[in-house]
């Protein structure tokens, strides 16, 4: 069987105007003004001015070539802004590449978000049909699978209710149920697993596994390296829009985790994601209250996250997750499940300090992923593997003995009591 997807030298360039705007004129007024002063500018231009005045350009995806065989589950790994989503959008025909070409054989089902095309005023039943049609199903197909979709979603009782009254969990379940029953030859899936609770994620993964088992071709982007590892055999790693590793999934994950150019910074800054209402600006890892990338065994860990927001916030919801250098999650925490103080007067910017105390990590490399959001607006900013640090040996418990790396991931401080 020939390849389902063949990409050859795909590239996507974005032009960035001055002042950081993505495009040069966003309004007609601006465009007219510029046209009006252009002749005057041209007369006054000195050599060397032009590139500065024109702003820059960014290659979100550059020179990307790969093939995906029929029935293959192919993973795409990379940090935020590496070009993963842009690549998926090119392959799903949502954006046009600037150069290169791709041949896609078969019906494509795109899942870049759950609930594409949902209308809040319509009932669950209506939205199954509407969203199904937008995702590419015909009326007959949807009608045939309707009962299955409803059963999978578990929202039978609310089918006649407008989805605006659904809880976010119900909404996600119904939306994913439609997507899971999409009968496409090729599924293009981006981060849909990152939302929802653990049970929902398990269901999603199960759905993906079934799709793969049924011989579908799946293109899968996720930060969940464990999911990528278990679903895919082949993958590629994107960095700054280019493929830096292509082939076996284990090698790709290893490469991705090893190769982090800015891995040794105790403090990292983040850009505001387009359209984000609340976002992290900076995060710092502190060990015994000092910024650190090397953490002595047994010392305390603190993560500070600074944020900004469009609107005043009483509580920014923050969370962290620590993973080892193979991407396995070790522990996580957030102030959604746990109470935390509120700002008495809502703020637009601030800093959250997360004191983890002594985390009994063994010697090794670890990465902290961070998220910050506003639950009321379903808006969150997630940065996977934002802070990297090394835990180094120390006689933390004063016995002259140091637990050896590789025995386990955590060395649990335990109170031992003897009785006779």
């Amino acid at each position: 069987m020939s390849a389902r997807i063949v990409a050859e030298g795909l590239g996507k360039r974005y032009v960035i105007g001055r002042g950081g705007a993505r495009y040069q004129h966003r309004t007609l007024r601006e465009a007219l003004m510029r046209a009006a002063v252009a002749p005057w500018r041209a007369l006054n231009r000195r050599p060397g001015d032009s590139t500065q005045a024109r702003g820059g350009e960014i290659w979100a995806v550059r020179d990307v070539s790969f093939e995906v065989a029929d029935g293959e589950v192919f993973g795409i790994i990379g940090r935020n802004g590496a070009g993963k989503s842009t690549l998926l959008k090119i392959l799903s025909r949502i954006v046009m590449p600037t150069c290169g070409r791709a041949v896609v054989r078969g019906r494509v089902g795109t899942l870049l978000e759950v609930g594409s095309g949902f209308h809040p005023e319509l009932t669950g039943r209506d939205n199954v049909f509407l969203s199904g049609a937008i995702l590419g199903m015909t009326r007959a197909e949807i009608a045939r699978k309707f009962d299955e979709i409803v059963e999978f979603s578990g929202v039978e009782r609310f089918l006649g209710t407008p989805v605006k009254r659904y809880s976010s969990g119900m909404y996600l379940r119904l939306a994913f149920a439609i997507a899971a029953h999409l009968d496409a030859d090729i599924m293009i899936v981006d981060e849909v697993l990152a939302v929802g609770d653990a049970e929902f994620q398990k269901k999603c993964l199960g759905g993906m596994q079934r799709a793969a088992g049924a011989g579908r071709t799946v293109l899968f982007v996720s930060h969940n390296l464990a999911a990528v590892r278990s679903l895919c055999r082949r993958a590629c790693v994107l960095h700054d829009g280019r493929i830096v590793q292509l082939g076996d999934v284990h090698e790709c994950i290893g490469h991705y985790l090893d190769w982090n150019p800015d891995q040794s910074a105790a403090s990292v800054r983040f850009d505001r994601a387009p359209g984000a209402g609340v976002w992290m600006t900076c995060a710092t890892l502190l060990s015994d209250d000092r910024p650190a990338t090397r953490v002595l065994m047994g010392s305390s860990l603190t993560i500070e996250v600074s944020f900004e927001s469009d609107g005043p916030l009483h509580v920014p919801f923050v969370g962290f997750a620590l993973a080892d250098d193979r991407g396995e999650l070790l522990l996580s925490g957030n102030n959604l499940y746990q109470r935390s103080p509120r700002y008495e007067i809502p703020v637009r910017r601030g800093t959250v300090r997360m004191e983890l105390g002594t985390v009994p990590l063994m010697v090794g490399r670890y990465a902290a992923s961070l998220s910050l959001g506003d639950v009321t607006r379903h808006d969150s900013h997630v940065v996977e593997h934002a802070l990297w640090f090394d835990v180094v040996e120390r006689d933390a418990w004063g016995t002259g003995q140091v637990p050896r790396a590789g025995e386990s991931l955590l060395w649990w401080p335990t109170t031992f009591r003897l009785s006779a």
Partner: protein
Amino acid sequence: MTTALREGGATGPVWEIRSESGVPSLNFGELWDCRSLFGFLIWRDIKVRYAQTLLGVAWVVLRPLATMLIFAPIFGRLAGIPSDGVPYPAFALVALVAWTYFAGALGSASNSLIEQAEVIGKVYYPRLFVPLAPVASDLLDSGVALGLLVPVLVVLGLVPSAPPILSLPLLFLVAACTAAGVGAGLAALTLRYRDFRYVVPFLIQGWMFASPVVYPTSLMPEGYRVLYALNPMVGVIEGCRWALLGTPAPGASVLAASAGSAAVLFFAGALYFRWAERTMVDLA
């Protein structure tokens, strides 16, 4: 953006994705293949509109009726504008039913892309459907309005005769083509230049006074009427008056000019939209 290399077969459609330049094509084949989705989008528009409003159907009649109640005393009485021998309220009302359709469809088509920018950035479907769906779904409203208009005319003592009424669907098709073409073009422009959405209401208002809504075409000098009819709404409105009120029929040349102009606007708008589609999601 994409070319269908081959359709059907065991592996389904084959798409080539590459950068596209030059003159765009309308790609009617793709639109036809996705007609079931188009149906869903129209159905959604209709369902949402009637789910949200208390008065529902009443609105489609109240809007032209209320406008007529304002226009009739001002233009009919105070200004003394002639009305081709029929009572001015009926003269204005018939025009306003056609105009309300056109203005509503054009306005919602123009805003459609901005409103649905999020969806088109997440899933691919023929984008031309976005501005076309409201133009099509508004037709239902107008059908209802026309159905309710006939009894009103009868009350006013004007009984429309059967054969001319049958031309109404064709006249509304001309209006729909115009709204679709201009609306698609404006939708693409509005996405590129966000302040275009403030221009559209002025455009619609200006267009109304450039159409024979409050005055008859007969006020125009004979020699300019065909030129005037290059505004497709001239043919549409005069046609509606002829069909419903029995005013003198617009000449064949006027109808041909309006229909031809509507076809040109439709294709020009749709082609511009297809051209703009290449960078649409980058702007959204």
